[in-house]
């Protein structure tokens, strides 16, 4: 078991996501930054589907009760293993009783902690990803425990990875959304020339930005949305749906982020600049 001594700001268990229930209104959930998690799981030689911890902004303090191996990735946080600093994308052996804790956030917003074999939190509707009310809790609380399987022998093929970081990227590549053609020339100009800044309203459901574009009075019937869908409200506000985003919506879907752009945005926090670029 992994025991949560201090929960931190917002830590959850996430895997690839919860599929095949979107037609019942269930968000797909899953890790926000798939690219970083792919590297974490690769180093541990885990399946792609292995569940990891998604650690947002302020990290937790964790006790590992069984031996295993861990890898951190994604955001850079000052993390320690028994008070000694540890780095991202490097395999660390864990003894029973070891304590991993997280300090200052240096760059990015979401750090991932992978464990050999993945965390084995209960699967509900095919996924271990936290999402209330599908799962009982929506994030770690002090004293929570999460299961993983004891792993004594593991000889990683690669013990460390130098990765090209995208944490400083500000350009989000986008495709045209279904309502793209309804945008006026002025709105298009605004969308692709302005620099937008991430608003306080940003979480696993959606990211909003401070700047608005020209308002509209277009109406549409409620229709499907995806993680990465950029909705435009009548007031000209942009809402970028993320992994816990609703599965349908009634605002024009003007842009659709690429998979990589979702990862880049997942590492942004309030005040960070972003630009949209059409592919």
């Amino acid at each position, binding site marked *: 078991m992994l025991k949560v001594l201090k929960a931190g700001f917002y830590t959850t268990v996430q895997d690839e*996501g919860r*599929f*095949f*229930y*979107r*037609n*019942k*209104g*269930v*968000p797909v959930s899953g890790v926000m930054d798939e690219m970083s998690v792919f590297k974490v799981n690769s180093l541990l030689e885990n399946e792609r589907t292995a569940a990891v911890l998604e650690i947002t902004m302020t990290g937790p303090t964790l006790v590992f009760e069984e031996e295993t191996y861990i890898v951190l990735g994604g955001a850079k946080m000052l993390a320690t293993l028994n008070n000694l600093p540890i780095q991202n994308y490097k395999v660390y052996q864990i003894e029973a009783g070891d304590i991993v804790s997280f300090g200052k956030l240096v760059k990015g917003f979401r750090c991932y902690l992978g464990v050999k074999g993945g965390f084995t939190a209960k699967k*509900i*509707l095919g996924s271990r990803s936290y999402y209330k*009310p*599908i*799962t009982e809790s929506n994030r770690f609380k002090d004293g929570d425990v999460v299961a993983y399987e004891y792993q004594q022998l593991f000889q990683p093929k690669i013990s460390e990875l130098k990765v090209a970081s995208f944490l400083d990227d500000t350009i989000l590549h986008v*495709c*045209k*959304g*279904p309502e793209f053609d309804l945008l006026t020339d002025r709105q298009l100009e605004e969308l692709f020339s302005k620099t937008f800044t991430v608003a306080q309203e940003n979480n696993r459901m959606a990211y909003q930005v401070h700047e608005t574009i020209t308002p509209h009075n277009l109406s*549409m*019937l*409620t*229709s*499907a949305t*995806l993680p*990465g*869908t950029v909705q435009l409200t009548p007031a000209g506000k942009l809402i970028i749906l993320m992994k816990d985003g*609703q*599965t*349908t*919506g009634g605002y024009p*879907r003007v842009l*659709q*982020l*690429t*998979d990589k752009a979702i990862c880049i945005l997942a590492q942004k926090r309030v005040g960070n600049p972003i630009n949209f670029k059409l592919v």
Partner: protein
Amino acid sequence: MNSPKIKIKPFGVHAILIEWPHTVNEQILEIILQYQVILQSNGFADPDWEMVPSYNSLMLVNRKHEIDHNKLTLELENYYTQLGHKDKTSKFLWRLPVCYDQEFGLDLQEVGAKLNISIADIIAMHTGAQYTVFGIGFLPGFMYLGGLNEKLEVNRKVSPRAKVEKGAVGIAGKQAGIYPQESPGGWNIIGNCPVPIFDASKENPCFVNVGDKIEFFEISRAAYKLHKIEAEVGIYQPEKIQLNA
């Protein structure tokens, strides 16, 4: 009947959207569902494809692969020509109990005052209609119901509630619905349904499908309490009637 024209649009690298004319119309919804059946039997199914129908659209999303939009558009157009009368979809009418007691019908008086109708008439009109499920979204198991009596059309509340109870039965504009779980919400709450619309512990967490019909019937507080307990232990089954069988 001639099938109405469709528009097929790319929706990012993993999805494609098929759109019908912009209208809330049961015939169009039926065509969308028939088309969904055809697609499902032609390989647009697990483990790669998911479909989300809603009002006048159907989204196909491939969770694993990027899709070739040009090729897929041609395929989808071709399948659309196969639409025929024999592809009847299987649909159900669900009869759901609602308790309109003042304990649950928080906005009954306000709605009655706004619309100048008695509470008894609100209940009679709400239970007297048959509703169509045009979409499921917003929250897990939240149904977008069409078919509300025009006389019950009332604006959303000026200030939304921070917390609407699970099972709350609401109306807003032309829409009716049930909050499948506790959530913030701006609809006018007129009662509560003790039957859970969404239950994550079940393999099929939501018994309702888009295209199904819903009717409400009034129950007493005592019956509400009983059904609530029955639902909690899993022995209450809502009344279900097969349509167009």
